[in-house]
């Protein structure tokens, strides 16, 4: 009963604190996904070429190669006349790529010698480099067509020159892009949990000591344990809110940005995000317990911020660990809090099957760690030193 009174008061109190609200409701759930997820999606977009989109290409001497122009046109590339100063135009970004057909192009083709084409590109410019890749790809297809025509003309089977036929068979469900994107998801969840409860935990424990409001509070007829647990419950509420909002914003973010460009195997649809949230949810309890017990040691908000700043490495550790080492899901890794959630969430997003045993181990491991931290926090509140 007292627990709920303390919880309710701390929530009301902290909802009036702009800093706490900003970090719980905006920083983790909105700003982080937009910054990290958004920039990631944008960079994939830049790398990926959509061959179906119609684009325009400036061509010098277009009239010298009517067949090529037709081929380009049939590959969704409209040709327009190039500006007078080609180099300046490409450098300034006015034209992304300019194709120059040399005067002896037609002659060389007729003679069966290599026909010269010049591409004016600006590789320092991302858009230009991307357009170049697309043009090059189309030109390569055209070249192959011409080559096989020439060979057939001379009575040679074109496949004679294909000495090796290399087939890459990717057995993973996901591409490399998907892997990175999948590891971002637990990172976003855990960061928003930490940030969501961070200031409330500090304010209710170290802040209360600093304001010297702890002394009268503890002289009231209630147990210290119910005070700590009330503060813990308030932290849990904020962390829960923050992570639920993060799930929502991740869902919306990937609704706006189509995922087909990343190969299409990464799942951020409603059920997947919901499942991810369910799998990561035990961490709400653990991270809140971590925040409360660490800030219970500290005397001032400043000290608490320093301690918790260092502590922030723990939620991020699995992210970097998994980037460097390829740790496979095992029974050991599944009983480790944080690490297990990272792996489970990656599997969820990539559409891999998750054994129930793994889920159970992950939940159990996290709850045990939570219980240990809560006992520690309650012990810390029994100390006489608390009032120094």
């Amino acid at each position, binding site marked *: 009963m007292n627990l709920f*009174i303390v919880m309710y008061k701390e929530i009301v*109190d902290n909802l009036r604190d702009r800093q706490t609200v900003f970090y719980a409701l905006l920083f983790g759930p909105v700003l982080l996904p937009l910054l990290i997820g958004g920039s990631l999606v944008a960079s994939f977009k830049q790398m990926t070429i959509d061959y179906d989109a119609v684009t325009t290409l400036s061509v010098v001497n277009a009239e010298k190669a009517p067949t090529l122009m037709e081929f380009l046109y049939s590959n969704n590339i409209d040709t327009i006349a190039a500006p007078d100063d080609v180099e300046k135009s490409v450098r300034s970004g006015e034209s992304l790529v300019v194709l120059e057909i040399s005067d002896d192009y037609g002659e060389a083709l007729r003679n069966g010698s290599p026909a010269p084409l010049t591409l004016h590109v600006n590789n320092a410019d991302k858009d230009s480099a991307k357009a170049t890749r697309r043009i090059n790809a189309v030109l390569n297809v055209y070249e192959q067509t011409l080559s096989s025509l020439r060979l057939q003309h001379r009575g040679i089977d074109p496949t004679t020159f294909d000495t090796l036929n290399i087939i890459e068979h990717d057995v993973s469900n996901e591409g490399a892009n998907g892997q990175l994107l999948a590891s971002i998801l637990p990172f976003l969840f855990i960061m928003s949990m930490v940030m969501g409860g961070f200031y409330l935990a500090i304010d209710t424990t170290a802040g209360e000591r600093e304001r010297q409001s702890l002394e*009268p*509070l503890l002289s*009231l*007829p209630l147990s210290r344990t119910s005070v700590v647990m009330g503060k813990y419950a308030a932290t849990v509420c904020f962390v829960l809110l923050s992570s639920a909002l993060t799930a929502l914003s991740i869902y919306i973010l990937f609704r706006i940005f189509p995922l087909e460009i990343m190969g299409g195997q990464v799942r951020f649809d409603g059920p997947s995000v919901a499942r991810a949230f369910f799998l990561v949810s035990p961490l709400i309890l653990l991270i809140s317990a971590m925040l409360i017990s660490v800030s219970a040691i500290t005397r001032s908000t400043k000290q608490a911020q320093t301690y918790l700043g260092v502590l922030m490495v723990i939620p991020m550790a699995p992210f970097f660990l998994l980037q460097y080492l390829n740790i496979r899901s095992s029974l050991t890794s599944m009983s480790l809090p944080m690490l297990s959630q990272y792996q489970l969430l990656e599997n969820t997003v990539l559409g891999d099957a998750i054994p129930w045993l793994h889920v159970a181990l992950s939940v159990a491991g996290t709850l045990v760690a939570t219980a240990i931290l809560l006992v520690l926090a309650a012990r810390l509140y029994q100390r006489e030193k608390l*009032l120094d």
Partner: protein
Amino acid sequence: MIVANQLHKSFKRLGASRRAPKSEQYIAAVKSVSFSALDGCITGLLGPNGAGKSTTLRMLATLIKPESGNAMIDGHDVATQVLQVRKHLGFMPHNAGIYPRLTARENIHYYARLCGLTRKQSQQRTGELIEQLTMLKFADRRATGFSQGQKTKVALARALVHRPQTLMLDEPTNGLDVMATRGLREIIRQLASEGHCILFSSHIMQEVAALCDHIAIISDGTVVMEDSLNEILKRTGQNDLEDAFVQAAQSLNHGEDE
């Protein structure tokens, strides 16, 4: 009613080496404190800074446990009957310690709820206290910009919220202006006349002399003299409390030298 009997408490010295002898590792904040405070009476705990006043009050408020000696609040032992003691005791520490983002009313209401009052009872009791301590003007403002006097009133209301028989105030007039101090004295006298036992700690002689019926002089962790103002003056042969205090404190040092 408060009865303290040879309370003793020592703290670990900061940075003390573990190999040092025990007497050097620990520092006695309260050596031997014995006094009593009766119902309907204002008792002053008078002593300079660092004499052990706050530590004594903390032991009485069950925040820390005495190492030896014992104390009873309205017949309940502070070491063993913690919850009973807390129910009978209102404690206002030397810093108001109110929540700046809550209004005065919310600050009091929170304590009322924690003391076990229902929502309705809490609202009623909070309203009563706001009226009794003339806080109506600022009751529904957030406490951030409160003056020291306003903060003290809120803290006092919180200490009184569960109608405790015994009230302990740790240097309540610190930082108050003349008018606020007078107002607070009025309230304290009123509470005493209603039959409450009031323990009032201070280092200001005039204040204790003006307000208290009964005075316990504490110096260097020990209560050296305990009596009414007139008796203390008579016993020390002095005309005012300040001289009497110096005399009493010296007699302690004198006693140690011998």
